[in-house]
């Protein structure tokens, strides 16, 4: 059911002071796909996200999104092109209200400046209204979790699970084409992660997002992914459907380590 090719990554490498965080990586995402990126700790998964979102500039290689290169763009420009992300260690604007968190994320989709705010022009008021409505709409995606009296509460009062939800809502609010979710269910209990897994499916089916997700929880990976990419030491060691990948000996070795006699 996958459509056009959205994102193509060719031969991507990055080194930090001689350390290869990513090495000659090839990767692609088609429209409407849900791709999971898995791999042991330190495999370079988060660096991979940082690179797509423009927070780290690759040493070599190319990233092509909707037929245009993303190399050299600032993170805000990448977001404006239509790639939004969440963070592994939840980074909300803790002292802004929940609603403001999703409102501020629409910055690059809106354009009112000083003039409108100071003179309260009708276009300013209209845009504020639209920002608010869209913000409430994305918050409403999580059912009653984030709406109601909570809208005016600072984000810092939220529980861990709700912070994760709000982060996803914030990324959704930027009106992206691709959502990059960095460990969306980390720290959630089984019930919550099951609920979120269902919602991730809805993000594609109802909201039309294409999703790339880093995840450690294999249950979640199995349930939602069309395709799984395995990274280890900055290289792709396997990709394919969950079943193919989970039986691949290289993958098992990367997770469990080599048998003792070979390692020495």
């Amino acid at each position, binding site marked *: 059911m996958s459509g056009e090719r959205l994102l193509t990554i060719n031969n991507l490498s990055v080194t930090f002071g001689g350390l290869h965080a990513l090495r000659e990586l090839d990767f692609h995402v088609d429209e409407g796909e849900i791709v999971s990126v898995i791999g042991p700790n330190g495999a370079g998964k988060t660096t991979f996200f940082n690179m797509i979102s423009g927070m780290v500039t690759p040493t070599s290689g190319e990233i092509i999104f909707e037929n245009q290169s993303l190399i050299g763009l600032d993170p*805000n420009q990448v977001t404006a092109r239509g790639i939004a992300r969440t963070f592994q260690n939840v*980074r909300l604007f803790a002292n802004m209200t929940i609603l403001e968190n999703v409102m501020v994320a629409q*910055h*690059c989709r809106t354009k009112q400046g000083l003039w*409108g705010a100071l003179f309260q022009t009708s276009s300013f008021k209209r845009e504020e209204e639209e920002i608010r409505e869209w913000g409430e709409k994305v918050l409403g995606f999580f059912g009653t979790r984030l709406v109601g009296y909570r809208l005016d509460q*600072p984000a*810092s009062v939220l529980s*861990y699970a709700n912070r994760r939800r709000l982060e996803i809502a914030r990324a959704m609010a930027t009106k992206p084409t691709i959502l990059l979710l960095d460990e969306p269910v980390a720290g959630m209990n089984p019930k919550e992660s099951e609920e979120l897994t269902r919602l991730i499916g809805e993000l594609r089916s109802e909201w039309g997002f294409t999703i790339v997700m880093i995840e450690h929880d294999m249950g979640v990976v199995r349930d939602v992914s069309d395709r799984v990419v395995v990274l280890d030491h900055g290289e792709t060691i396997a990709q394919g459907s969950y079943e193919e990948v989970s039986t691949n000996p290289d993958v098992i070795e990367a997770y469990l380590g080599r048998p003792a006699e070979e390692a020495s």
Partner: protein
Amino acid sequence: MTDTTVLAPARGVLDQDWRKIVNYGLLLALAEVFIALANMPVGLDDFILIEPILSLGYVSLLWLPLLLGYSIGTEKVLEGVTSHAKGAREVVAGACVGLIGGGGVSGLVLLLDNFDLRDPLVNWSPQLLALLAFDNGVGYGVGVWLAIGGGLGLLGGSMHLIAPLARRVVSTMVLAVVGVAVLETILSDIAEDLFLEWLADWIYFIRGGVSLHGAATVAVVAGAYAVWGSKAVKGAKASYQALEGVERKQANKVSIAVVVAATILLPLVLGKITNELLANVGLFLLLALGLNIVIGLAGILDLGYVAFFAVGGYTTAILTSPNRGDSWPTWIPQVWWVVALMLVIVLAGLTGLFIGAPVIRMRGDYLAIVTLGFGEIIRLLFLSDWLGGFTGGAQGVTNVPGVQVFGLANVRGTDPRAVFYLVAFFCAIAIYVSWRLEKSRIGRAWMAVREDESVAEAMGINTVNVKLLAFVVGAVLASFSGAIFAAKVGSVFPTSFIILVSIVILIVVIVGGMGNIAGVVAGSVVLIGVLGGPKQPGLLQEFSEFKLLIYGALLVWMMLKRPEGLIPNVRRTRELHQDEFLQDAWLKGQIDEGDETGDGGEVAPA
């Protein structure tokens, strides 16, 4: 804190934390000796609070034993930790602390009598000795200070024993008497214009200070207020906060109207000196409001903020004065202030861009120092011979005419009331701008940048542009203040634009409360109005010797104890006390009832 907390029984008198007592005592002794040697008792002795018994000089030594005697007995109320009831133990602790502190002063008396250290310590004087010994011999002084220290400490400690209501009454009474005494000039000024001279004559002694019967009157009124009045005020506040929607909006409108009316009417009943004071407060408020956008909303610590004040002042002076430097071509006309203001806005904006662009990508602390450097560079350039032909060098630009308000009035320094109205008008603009921007797309982007810059960038905010905009808006507001300053003083000199100004504005913003307009207003009124600006005298002119010292101490104390400022912005408070807040909420089980398993105690890295 709730009143229902169950207290454990009071601890025994000897069950003391002796180490803490000695620490507090030594701290007190050190502070008292420092205050004495800083010349506060002698310098403030002429400022009579209550005729004939109390001068501000003695008060400078007396308030600390009382305060420390009280605070030794206070414990931090922690959620989940048993608190003990207060008893004789706290009184004894207070007395011990006071005694050690009094001992410090006594020791100083002995030293003053036996050694001459006047060479490095300029205030080591016979007057100090005489004052500390109550003109009664060294032995008397030593004994009395021990008694005073112990007594005040005891008094402070025993404040724990009386009921909270009584405590409130006592503190309100004391504050009211001191406040009425300190604000004598302004209060008698107002009283005169309201035909209440008889009241002023009753309260105040002829040559300054509150008379005994006046003090008693004030104390009674204040006490009565504390018992009955404060409840009514609280009730009104609560019912205001309970208002919603349209009613709330109307209430807001009414209160804004009241404030505006007061701003317009108050100067009419005030004398020249007080109006001058208000005009200075306004100038600094305007600066503080601008800096508040930069540091409070966008989180950029700009220490060279005075540069924009200088640009505003110099541009206005050069464009309006006949006395500008010789190097200007003659075809540049002398223009009206209002016309000059247009150019001031443009130039300040450009300066903001020019200074902002190189620094905007730097990390916050480097940015602080570099902006400070820029502030200094601009002042040095104005001062230098190189640009002296344009800026007048050390002689500055003089003969700046006043503000021609479309031929209706000429506002200048000789008429502080008019200056105040002008400043108030621009402050109103600044407040409007801050308020509207905070609730707009740009304001939200500023806050996001303040919270977490790299995430803000990842969420599609062009942080460079957004921060530059904050810089420019702040710059323009500061330049307004500079433009009015030039017209008010009638001249500009490089010495008016030293780094000290930046730091004082920073202190005003921080003491008032970063990111909060009401806080910034309160900060300016209290600090600039009462203590005075870097060069401008405040209400307490006697304090001018000590005001910078007090500013420094206040800044440190605020950062340590109350980083959210006098009037806190709820958000900033949470940000600054996040750990405590979350911990308490977690212990009370208040975080997020909606989630069964919310791991609420965890703090997401900011």
